[in-house]
């Protein structure tokens, strides 16, 4: 299980969950949220993870270094609602061992 990392995800009800996220299954943060059923089906990852719906928007609470935002993600966040300076799209954050200790909060559904 050495490929698993510990991350904290605060759901839309404000409950924080400590979960083990695999880094060897090509999973992104949105898929981790879905696999642990931390948001109702149909409310997250609607576009399937293509940075086209912003349903997986989250706020990054920790100082964890994340992959740089690409054009698609930036463009989607420029149109999304409830956007903050620390907003990211979960579908664009691929799980890697360097993300041990990542803490995020799911943005409200919109």
């Amino acid at each position, binding site marked *: 299980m050495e490929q698993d990392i510990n991350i904290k995800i605060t759901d839309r009800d404000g409950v924080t969950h400590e979960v083990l996220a695999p880094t060897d299954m090509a999973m992104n943060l949105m898929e981790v949220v879905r696999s642990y059923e931390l948001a*109702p*089906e*149909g*409310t997250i990852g*609607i*576009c*399937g993870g*293509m940075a*086209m*719906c912003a*349903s997986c928007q989250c706020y990054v609470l920790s100082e964890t270094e994340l992959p740089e935002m690409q054009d698609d993600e*930036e*463009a*989607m966040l*420029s*149109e999304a*609602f*409830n*956007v903050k300076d620390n907003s990211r799209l979960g579908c664009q954050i691929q799980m890697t061992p360097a993300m041990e200790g990542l803490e995020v909060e799911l943005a409200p559904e*919109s």
Partner: protein
Amino acid sequence: MIKTDILIIGAGPTGLFAVFEAGLLKLKCHLIDALPQQGGQCSELYPKKPIYDIPAYPEILAGDLTHKLMEQCKQFEPGFTLGERAETIEKQEDGSFIVTTNKGTKHQAPVVAIAGGLGSFEPRKPLIHNIAAFEDKGVEYMIKEPEFYRDKKVVIAGGGDSALDWSIFLSDIASSVTLIHRRNEFRGHLDSVEKVQELKNEGKINLITPAEVVGILGDKKLKGIVVKKAEHIEKEIELECDHFIPLFGLSPKLGPIANWGLEIEKNAIKVNNALDYQTNIPGIYAIGDVNTYPGKLKLILCGFHEATLMCQSAYQIINPGKRYVLKYTTVAGVDGFDGTRKESPKAVVKKIE
């Protein structure tokens, strides 16, 4: 009243393939979709994205898949009610159902198949506290009739293709067009972005970026909007207008189907997957991404399979007691309702002397 054999709610890939499968059984279909075009999520969200797990297509664009499915089912002459959302369902004494849309169009069928994907796509509404009070009183989320805006002061908000395209289009019709976007960069096609730049330079489009609409002005009718520019976050600008059109894309919602008395689990409709994908209401089926059952996979190819089994079961409801034997298209060919016939060439039998 539109009458058909199978009324399909949702014109995405699963709904379109169901038309073909129903056609093989000589059953006629009519489809309702809240979107103005066929293809569902494939044509609305990602028409230019390639899909790699459609059997026999190593790669196909989502928009092309829709096109191919339309081509495949057109011989069975499906009817379409597009741009309308299925609102209510009533069971009739003869066992059939009447489904009425939000625009009052009525449809009657002995079988209803819900192929609604993630639900009906509704406009994403900006988070402005009093916006709901001005809906249809100056605030519109879709442009249905451009002439409605002739000689009016129009404000459009958004940064995608819809916002850009309508700003360009209305710049010739409206007395003024203002486009407001949170960033200086736009998400739309390069051509559209360049055209907006050109129209801005000509004074035909008033561009306000980076900025956000934060308030609505008016009493019973829209009189203007309040804008906050990013670099003057403490200062708000009031802008007089007749129409405010936020174009922030669409978001899927299960919508009125959720109130039809169907068993719902995790935003999806529970079905009998061991048999035929029928819901808890006999005669109503749910196929594709809209349904759920143990082991469900939300994949287009699974929707195709479910559509096929649904049609076989629907046949028994529509033709009670009639026996049907599964036939292969390679053997039986395909008889279109439009009079066409496709069949594989027969082997030439040569007499041995």
